[in-house]
């Protein structure tokens, strides 16, 4: 054959060989993994492999970071546990394949922290009955599927008290991602808390329609400030942009999701709340290890340590602190229930009658805002 043809042939053979070398290990690896697993479990494997998935980045100084810290606490408390973590899994579709991969890697407990993960996790729980699934903030239950959450409404009420005391313009700003049931509940609790110390306080809500659209968050914060709000708070994944923007306009702010948020608003920070679910998750993991796990609709609040108030900022007055402490004491004692009736919505309809209380499983699907809130529940 000619030199050119021979070179082409050799080239083709080389490439084919390289491709084969590249692909062959694939088949052998999976087989190897399968045979290796039982050995390691008998020998020195971890006592439990936990898969945790987050909707965003675990260093967002917000919700995902708080959840990440809580998950990592499990490992601190129970060193033989191994944790596989996945970040930035926002959508259902990615969640399913991520969880499948985790289970293939040996995970026997899945902690799904994003709101959207509930249904994929529920479906997979039916496919893998020997894996325990815990979801944050949902409401579904199953034989191997349960959920857990803090008790944000109480915390929001207290933050509302702080805001109501601190405001001069009587306008509070709330930057929200979506008009989601939980978000509206938080806004309502916030406003109710503010109203309890300042009946003229109103909360203006601005939606960004994204969990992490930083530019829109900055736009929304500015818009609220330009409408006269002098205390800003938020329900988005990461509070960083909202806090920084408020700080740059010299406006007070209150943080949510994670205690790491305070660094973004050193001067005008009032207070904030963060999820501190480390002990709760540790307990849940220990029940899985002991095989004593049962599906529980787990909710816990500040008293149990699931949620923590952040330290106060430098400009907070003693009056404000006292008011907040009073509210906390009342809630702990049971004399104050945040969503006890009568509660009236923006149109004047009575949503919670006198003597009744809004129950927790409805809080995730609220579609109204209390009187005193400016903005649409849609």
């Amino acid at each position, binding site marked *: 054959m000619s030199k050119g043809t021979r070179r082409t042939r050799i080239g083709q053979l080389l490439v084919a060989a390289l491709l084969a070398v590249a692909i062959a290990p694939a088949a052998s690896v999976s087989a190897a993994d399968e045979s290796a697993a039982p050995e390691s479990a008998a020998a020195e494997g971890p006592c439990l492999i936990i898969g945790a998935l987050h909707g965003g980045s675990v260093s967002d100084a917000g919700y995902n970071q708080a959840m990440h810290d809580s998950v990592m606490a499990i490992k601190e408390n129970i060193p033989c546990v191994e944790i596989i973590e996945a970040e930035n899994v926002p959508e259902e579709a990615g969640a399913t394949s991520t969880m499948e991969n985790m289970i293939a890697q040996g995970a026997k407990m899945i902690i799904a922290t994003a709101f959207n993960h509930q249904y994929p996790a529920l479906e997979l729980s039916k496919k893998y009955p020997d894996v325990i699934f815990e979801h944050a903030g949902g409401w579904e239950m199953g034989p191997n599927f349960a959920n857990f959450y803090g008790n944000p409404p109480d915390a929001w009420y207290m933050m509302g008290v702080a805001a109501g005391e601190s405001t001069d313009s009587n306008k509070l700003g709330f930057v929200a991602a979506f008009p989601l049931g939980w978000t509206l509940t938080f806004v309502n609790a916030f406003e109710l808390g503010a109203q309890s110390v300042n009946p003229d306080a109103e909360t203006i809500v*601005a*939606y960004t329609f994204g969990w992490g659209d930083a530019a*829109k968050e900055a736009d929304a914060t500015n818009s609220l400030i330009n409408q006269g709000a002098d205390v800003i708070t938020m329900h988005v994944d990461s509070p960083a942009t909202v806090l920084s923007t408020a700080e740059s306009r010299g406006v007070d702010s209150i943080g949510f999701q994670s205690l790491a948020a305070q660094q973004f608003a050193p001067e005008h920070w009032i207070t904030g709340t963060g999820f501190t679910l480390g002990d709760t998750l540790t307990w849940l993991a220990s029940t899985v290890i002991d095989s004593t796990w049962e599906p529980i609709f787990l909710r816990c609040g500040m008293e149990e340590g699931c949620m923590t108030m952040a330290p106060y900022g430098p400009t907070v007055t003693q009056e404000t602190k006292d008011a907040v402490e009073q509210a906390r004491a009342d809630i702990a004692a049971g004399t104050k229930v945040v969503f006890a009736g009568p509660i009236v919505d923006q149109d004047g309809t009575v949503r919670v009658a006198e003597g009744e209380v809004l129950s927790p499983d409805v809080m995730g699907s609220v579609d109204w805002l209390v009187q005193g809130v400016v903005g649409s529940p849609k």
Partner: protein
Amino acid sequence: MSDLALLGILSTALFSGTSLLYAALGELVGQRAGIVNLGLEGVLLVSAATGFSVTALSGNPYLGILAAAIAGALMNTVHGYLVISRKANQLASGLALMFFGFGLSAWIGADYVGARIVGLPRLDLPGLAGLPEVYASLVRFDILIWLVVPVAILVWWLLYRTRWGLGVRAVGESPDTVYASGRSAQSIRYQALWLGGLLAGVGGAHLAIAYAMNWSENMTAGRGFIAIALVIFAKWDPLRAIAGALLFSAAVAFQLLLQSSGFQVSPFLLSTMPYLLTLLVLAIWGGRRRAAAPASLGRVYQGTE
């Protein structure tokens, strides 16, 4: 509507529109040279991530802006190499660049999500001391905002009043003529892309370092495509782009205000405005606008380039 709210719209329009204008100017220069970069979104993301990380690492926002600009220029150069030297399809190369930008920016910014940076300092104007903080902070712009309009004018001047600009426009109209006149169409295009990349990079920097002061994956949220629409809307004229950028951004600010006014206009439908407006303007004044487009862009759209 209170005067604070009205002034607020203008202020937000400038804050938010600055990065849009820089990005549009960057795309505009490239398109004037006859090169379409559909990957502008990716360029913005990479420059935002680079700028943010460098700022977080060094504590110096100016260094971050510089890094972002260079990152933008490098991204554009990748596109340029494929399209100019390897004669690749511009649309495909641009889209590939966009995906490249998604991945590269995520990789660069991975360790810096949620980092707290020293944002670009905002400058106090003299004579504002008496005003309440809320008002004063409306006009406390950073240096990039102050510079954006002068830069747009500079780009206009470069394109219309210098020999270099003449060369760029000539290449955009007819690369063969330029070649015949002895100048290198290739190197002019590379230069235009480099400058365009610097400008787009500054746009990305402003978003992450000065305005949002944060980095998260895909934070540009389609801003690159709005910028491309803006270039067409502005008839490839830098001065018109200023007005367009302000218009598009003011609409967003306006929509946020509407949310609390009880006026139920969907923020989504309002956000379609830049694109529909551009399309409308193209359809109605199609003839004249097409004449305003650099002629060799037509070859891109016909698939011969």
